[in-house]
């Protein structure tokens, strides 16, 4: 019973922290660019405001448009429940492994793209088309990074990978792990719509990918989608943090261990978020047709990770 509660609790922590993570990156970016910036907790106010507003829905849209925000938020929450955020050893109650997480996220993206097409707006179609392109091209890298991790740990289960890295700290600094981390980090940028693939703060329609796709959303629907997007970012960063650097994660359900687990994951997320903020300040957005080159770089990194894992054995 406690395990269920801890699992539910860790998922809720992830859901609750997600807007703060997005806000923190935005705030830090503003500071780095010499602006004052909104405080890191601003997204909470935004979400609250949006929940209180009415939603404007196009005449053209069907039920798909209205169902999608719930599905997108729902799939992201389910994925968050699979990921070891604070505790690693809850495996009997986790309903899927890494591949299942990838496909669940794909389910959300699938419906988001359909919703983009649903209103008949050219921006929606443009965003949907580009988003599906980017997502399809990231899939092989994600899969190969999973293979590189799974070859070391002998399984694609989250808790098994974490446990293995903890018992063999030398493997965590091996070339296989580092290359896979680099590959997964590039994919994270692409999947969560960050620079240099997509610009989360652009409002020029022709350059948008994710934002163009959700352009028609407003009110509570938009709140769910934005929250879901923030949660997706948190999930990817948690994966990068806890699968590759699991130190500090709680291995038992003792309150102290859980506190350390929570503290360490917040610290790790802070570091990765800072890295993204610095990166976004430093690089410019790539042209859409240069994105495949970046993604093929990440694919090669992941392939090298697999090969070095094989050679290291």
């Amino acid at each position, binding site marked *: 019973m406690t395990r269920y509660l801890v699992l539910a609790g860790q998922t809720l922590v992830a859901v609750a922290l997600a807007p703060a993570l997005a806000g923190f990156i935005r705030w830090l970016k503003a500071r780095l660019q010499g602006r004052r910036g909104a405080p890191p907790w601003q997204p909470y106010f935004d979400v609250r405001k949006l929940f209180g507003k009415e*939603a404007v829905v196009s005449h053209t849209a*069907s039920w798909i448009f209205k169902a999608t925000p719930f599905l997108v*938020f729902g799939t992201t929450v389910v994925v968050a429940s699979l990921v070891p955020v604070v505790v690693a050893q809850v495996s009997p109650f986790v*309903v899927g492994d890494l591949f299942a997480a990838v496909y669940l996220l794909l389910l959300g993206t699938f419906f988001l793209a359909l919703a983009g097409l649903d*209103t008949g707006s050219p921006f929606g179609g443009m965003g949907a088309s580009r988003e599906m*392109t980017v997502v399809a091209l990231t899939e092989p890298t*994600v899969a190969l990074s999973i293979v590189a991790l*799974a070859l070391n740990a002998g399984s*694609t289960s989250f808790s098994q990978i974490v446990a293995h890295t903890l018992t063999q700290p030398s493997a965590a600094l091996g070339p296989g792990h580092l290359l896979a981390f680099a590959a997964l980090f590039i994919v994270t940028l692409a999947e969560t719509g960050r620079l240099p693939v997509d610009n989360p703060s652009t409002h020029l329609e022709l350059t948008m990918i994710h934002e163009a796709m959700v352009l*028609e959303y407003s009110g509570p629907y938009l709140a769910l989608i934005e929250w879901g997007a923030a949660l997706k970012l948190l999930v990817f960063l948690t994966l990068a943090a806890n699968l590759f650097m699991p130190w500090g994660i709680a291995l038992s359900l003792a309150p102290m261990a859980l506190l350390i687990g929570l503290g360490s994951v917040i610290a790790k997320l802070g570091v990765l978020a800072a890295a993204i903020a610095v990166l976004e300040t430093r690089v410019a957005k790539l042209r859409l047709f240069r994105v495949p080159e970046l993604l093929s770089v990440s694919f090669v990194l992941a392939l090298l990770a697999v090969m070095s894992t094989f050679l290291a054995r």
Partner: protein
Amino acid sequence: MDVIGVALWVMVAGYMGGAGLALMAPSPRAVRVITGIGAVVGSAAGLAAALTVLATHRPFEVVLPNLAATTGGVAIRLDLLGALFLALVAAVSLPAAIYGIAYTAAYDGRRSLRAFGLMFNGFLLGMSLVPSAGNVFTFLLAWELMAVTSYFLVLTESEHSDTREAGLWYAAMTHFGFVLLVPMFLMMAPGADATTFADLRAGAAGLSPAARNGVFLLAVVAFGSKAGLVPLHVWLPRAHPAAPSHVSALMSGAMIKLGIYGLMRVTIDLLGTGPEWWGGVVLVAGSLTALVGVLYALAENDLKRLLAYSSVENIGVIALGIGAGLVLQSYGLHSLALVGFGAALLHSVNHACFKGLLFLATGNVVHRAHTRNMEHMGGLIKGMPQTAAFFLIGSAAAAALPPLNGFASEWMVFQALLSGAQIPRPEIAIGTPLAVGVLALTSGLAAACFVKAFGISFLALPRSDAAARAREVHWSTRAMMAVLALGCVVLGLEAPRALGHMYRILDSLSPFPGAAPPSPATSGTGVWLLSPNGIARASPLLIACLLTLVVMVVAIAIRARGLAVRPADTWGCGRIRQTPRMEYTSSAFAEPLRRIFSELYRPTEDLSVIVHPESPYFVRSITYTSQVVPWLERALYDPVIRGVRTLATYVRRLQAGSVHVYLLYIAGALAVAFVSAWWAE
């Protein structure tokens, strides 16, 4: 004679009755109903027979030695593997037959429905007999019956030149396969009077390695041409769109799976374990098939061609499972190999279900929109809400999204390939992860492809008057789609149990008896899909429950706060009225990927701008045409076609038209016959 025998006789009688009576029925309506009833009786009985065999685990055997005695007689042997594929065929033909009764009403008075009824039932009979065959003669007879009748079904709308061309391609490819099947069986048969599969199995053990390799390669090419392995897939995107939609559903859902059946029967069952390069060949073919299939599907604007290419892709996924299994088997890792083969079988069943559904739904769409071109559809979800919902379920399953059925089998293929990566040989340890990458890319592209298929056809504003006026078709067609959609959901949620059945079927085959592995992977009980070592697991059922729970909680919470919705126009930068011309089109949706993979597509583009004579800045009209020409096909097939033509002109000299020359031929043939008879003495 037990229950299974009776059911099989009823099956044959049903199909034959449907075929025969359809020829004699008085009115077009009666022809349609009789065709349907015969097919329904036949497939229901076939399903009953197959399910009984699967439930009792007892193979059924009957030999009719007096029927065509010189060839060894007709032998029926329904073992578990055969029963699975018979069940698959029957489970797709049952809804397709009922769907066809209303669907073929469009042909009333236009075309001979009698001949259609004959061919339709003959086709179903052939497909049902292929997995039931117990000896070479019966197998080849059923195979040929299936090929010939389906050829005529493809030619149903033979007034279009496209259809006739499709028929020619189909006939050529299917007979190419048949021509290779005969030497394959000849190489295996130990003697002229021993042609049952049991004899072949016994004889295969004594073959030389070279002969075994030859049989294997012939099997891959011959059955690959039926299944649609690249580059032998060329007939699929031609024949599937040409045939009536319920026939496409049968060809895509059931018939190409019989190619998979043949491949598994010959390689796994009859030949047994081979060298590891067998698996390598199938893995490479599978990767190529999956990738090429999905990439062409993505570029396609014709909805039925898109689905046909998507079938090619799924055959590739199935081949990846088989290839992983063959590699693992060659290293003696039988319990891991079981996972690969099991995943392949499960994906065969799953693909039959969702592709059958998608083709039936497309049939209704084409019926109402009067076109297969997605650029003229759109907004169909308003007029055809149920068809749209069914098509969406099929699309999500085809994109392997959890918790529907495509997800479970692809997850298992991933796990099987991952097991292959553990083998300490460089080419395998690098090759299988690459196959994982290909499979992941394929599923990502498949998701993009089905977003396009559903989104462009069913959502937004209608792009033509026919699409705007579209209404639901007869209730019986929708009921049949509902059955298949339910199948997609149930097979997805109950995938672990289905997979357990697949493992048991494989366990009963000769290379595996007693190889029942200790791992929980074979138990297949409970709600968990398990990796071979039992550590990684996923549960479609629990994922579905959890997802439903979260969505419900969020929906209730938002409803409780009160959700005010104001309808308005789509935002369009201040323009007044929204028209369908502003929507993203099918070509536009695929454009980024078409550019990225332009090497494969090599599209021909033609842009002509007519400007105002006074100033080039005032444009009067822009015409843009772009076409994707499958260059791979051209490069491979054009030389072959040219060669055959040249050969044909030479051969034509034999047909001189002179009676004297023909008499000479007869005399010569007689002389050869005498000499060979004398030689044999």
